[in-house]
């Protein structure tokens, strides 16, 4: 294992110290491992809280700031945060208009956020609504699994819902919007290499040279199938086809090509070109795009493609100012 770390046990704490030092407009609660926007709680605004295992940076801590999240809880690498963290985050962002929990659909995340919501309900009058993101089309049969995993749509959802909350919309409306976005987004990923969890010290799985895993999860969970490495145009096809087979997309989508951590931007643009060409042939116009490593899996090489069916309202909220370490425009 070659990593720029001090001690594997301190990775998350050390990275949070770095975030606090690099971004003085954020406030980091080091004891609870929660990143807050510096002016939280914002009075009268719905508070947006997300969180999950570390190792996916910039998600979620890098999406804290005006126009996006109010707080993010950082768990150990690939391990859900604990309810105490989520309670601290929820109480810290409650500006009197309630709090939305944005949870990716993983067993641990869902249960810990559920317990946190119960604790908040028992301890205070803060109203909490939870929205679970499950957009990964790689998981086909949710009857026999823990259901679809939350992946790329989460990033787009946090941006768009963040803009809606910033406008002062009430909790119920913000939650409805979040559910609508989850329902309108689909993702599919591919891994070219494994990743190494610092505490484990060795690669999570074995992926031989010349092979790739189609449908990979962001923690190295297995995908749909293992196939020989192929040119980007074929890989793009393998990612976009199952997305289009799962939901009908029409003109005006947000197209997000996400790097998993070890793939350079050069290659992500190669993939984007192929995705754009496939969508053009399918008569699906791209209204907005996002290309880059926004939801990573440590140093895994590979990418994911997310399509979100947008409309005028979603596009207006997408274009609204955002000012976070990970996404920043119009601010």
């Amino acid at each position: 294992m070659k990593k720029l770390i001090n001690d594997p046990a301190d990775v998350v704490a050390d990275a949070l110290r770095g975030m606090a030092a690099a971004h003085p407009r954020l406030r980091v609660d080091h004891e609870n491992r929660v990143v807050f926007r510096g002016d939280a709680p914002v009075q009268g605004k719905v508070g947006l809280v997300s969180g999950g295992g570390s190792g996916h940076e910039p998600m979620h801590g890098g999406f804290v700031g005006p126009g996006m999240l109010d707080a993010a809880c950082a768990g150990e690498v690939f391990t859900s945060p604990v309810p105490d963290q989520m309670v601290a985050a929820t109480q810290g962002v409650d500006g009197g208009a309630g709090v939305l929990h944005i949870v990716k659909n993983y067993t641990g995340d869902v249960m810990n956020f559920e317990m946190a919501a119960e604790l908040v309900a028992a301890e205070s009058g803060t109203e909490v609504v939870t929205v679970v993101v499950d957009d990964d089309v790689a998981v086909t049969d949710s009857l026999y699994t823990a259901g679809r995993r939350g992946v790329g749509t989460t990033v787009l959802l946090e941006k768009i819902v963040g803009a809606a909350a910033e406008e002062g919309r009430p909790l119920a409306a913000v939650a409805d919007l979040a559910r609508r976005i989850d329902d309108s987004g689909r993702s599919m990923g591919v891994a070219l290499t494994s990743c190494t969890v610092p505490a484990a010290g060795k690669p999570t799985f074995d992926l031989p040279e010349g092979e790739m895993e189609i449908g990979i999860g962001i923690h190295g969970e297995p995908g749909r199938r293992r196939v020989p490495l192929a040119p980007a145009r074929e890989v793009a096809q393998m990612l976009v086809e199952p997305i289009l087979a799962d939901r009908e997309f029409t003109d005006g989508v947000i197209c997000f090509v996400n790097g998993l951590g070890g793939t350079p931007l050069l290659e992500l643009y190669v993939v984007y070109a192929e995705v754009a060409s496939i969508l053009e042939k399918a008569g699906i116009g791209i209204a907005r795009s996002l290309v880059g490593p926004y939801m990573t899996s440590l140093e895994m090489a590979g990418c994911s493609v997310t399509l979100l069916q947008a409309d005028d309202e979603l596009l207006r909220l997408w274009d609204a100012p955002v000012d976070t370490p990970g996404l920043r425009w119009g601010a």
Partner: protein
Amino acid sequence: MNPEQLTAWLQRFAELVHEQKDELTALDSAIGDADHGSNMDRGMTAVVAALAEAPPADAAAVLKKTGTTLVSKVGGASGPLYGTLFLRMAGAADGGFAPALRAGFEGVLARGKAEPGDKTMVDALGPACDVLDAGGSLAEAAQAAADGRDATVPLVARKGRASYLGERSAGHADPGATSTALLLRAAAETLS
């Protein structure tokens, strides 16, 4: 149930988890995310320390302290599941061990929404509760939990991260059922 006995049970469970930490993690590497041994060891070490620092006055308080400590320290799926088990046991501590464990089991079912046969801790805990409810001994309950663990080997996982493996999850014991069998073994050794 008195607080000293329960504390001895939890200390023994912590010892067994620590001894078998690497085996639990190896099982979890095969079908999950390779953290069950280290997470449970961290959680139970914290439980033993918390109980030693301020020994609770009654059985319910021991169980509650155990549950809240696990929820706060473990994370992942096992934190809420084991935490809920002990918190629900605390709420039913007056009736004795068997009804308390049954209440804990029902809490686990509600929290995890798993059913028997999904290849989870339910497959070890359920049979142990059935034996105790039928008047069986703790040793018999521990055996039922161990048999339940063994019975998870050929199963295909339907819950948690292991479920994404589909058929590839068969052939390994479930890590959660394995740690639950240790919990019942510790009970047989300390509470009989």
